[in-house]
């Protein structure tokens, strides 16, 4: 039954991601929804954004020297319940990365595997660029450099408003360079931003080990064929580490496992 459910879910996952992107940027609900931290990396400065980017929010509280109880509580509750599921189903930037990687074969881009040893970098980005630097400089530096912010807000707003165009300088050029770098990287590596940079993913990563929703592998039936890793959007050897901190709960591995060894469990 778990495999049937996984098949039905994964068939719809791309649609859920697309609908999530549209809903998150549907503009007209802003009056009451901006108080809700967005379950994904969606720029608050996007003209249509209806939720508040949690990373932007955390930086604002770091700038003012306050503890963001509400935002941390919402993120913690989501993490405790479903781990990094929002990364796999709701985050627009995660969706973009999967779409870009899908272009790899058509554009004849080589596959570039980056060692997971660099996964700790996302915690550095969280602590330094989202916490320490905004606290010391009183500027939300992660938001200034965030590629999702550039894509959703930096580029559209500069195109629309002439007074913003007049202010374009080295920082804007740097933002564009960072975005372009990630767009190219996404075509060679699976979800590189999620695995090595995303501070929101860094917050949710530790919850994967203790979340109510989790994966389990029956080692007695598993043949270690590696099918789960080949289909995994974040390149996890699921048969070895089903509760990996990288896992985005996409359940693609459940769908493809030939022995039905992987299960989705809830507590």
């Amino acid at each position: 039954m778990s495999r049937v459910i996984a098949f039905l879910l994964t068939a719809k996952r791309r649609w859920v991601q697309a609908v999530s992107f549209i809903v998150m940027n549907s503009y007209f609900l802003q009056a009451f929804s901006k108080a809700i931290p967005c379950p994904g990396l969606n720029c608050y400065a996007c003209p249509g954004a209806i939720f508040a980017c949690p990373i932007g929010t955390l930086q604002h509280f770091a700038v003012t020297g306050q503890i963001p109880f509400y935002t941390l509580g919402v993120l913690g509750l989501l993490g405790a319940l479903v781990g990094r599921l929002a990364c796999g189903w709701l985050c627009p930037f995660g969706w973009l990365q999967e779409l870009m990687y899908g272009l790899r074969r058509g554009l004849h881009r080589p596959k570039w595997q980056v060692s997971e040893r660099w996964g700790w970098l996302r915690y550095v980005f969280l602590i330094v660029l989202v916490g320490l630097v905004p606290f010391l400089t009183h500027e939300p530096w992660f938001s200034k450099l965030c590629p999702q912010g550039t894509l959703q807000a930096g580029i559209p707003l500069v195109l629309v408003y002439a007074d913003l165009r007049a202010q374009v300088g080295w920082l804007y050029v740097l933002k564009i360079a960072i975005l372009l770098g990630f767009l190219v990287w996404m075509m060679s590596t699976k979800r590189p931003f999620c695995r090595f940079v995303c501070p929101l993913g860094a917050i949710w990563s530790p919850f994967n080990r203790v979340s109510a929703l989790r994966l389990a592998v029956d080692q007695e039936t598993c043949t270690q064929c590696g099918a789960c890793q080949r289909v995994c959007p974040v390149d996890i050897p699921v048969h070895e580490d089903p509760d990996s901190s990288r896992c985005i709960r996409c359940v693609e591995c459940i769908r493809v496992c030939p022995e039905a060894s992987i299960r989705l469990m809830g507590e």
Partner: protein
Amino acid sequence: MIPRDHVPSAESEGCPRRRVIVNRMLVVIASGLILLGVSMGQTFVTWLNATLL
């Protein structure tokens, strides 16, 4: 042949129970943080409005 009801499983070990306890604690703590934050007026819109005044 091992009788089915004596096959060792993760559920019979201590770790899942500890995980459930940790999970429940995290849910309670997170819920408490939300309530604390809301009572302090920390929903983002409220904060944003305050900084604009």
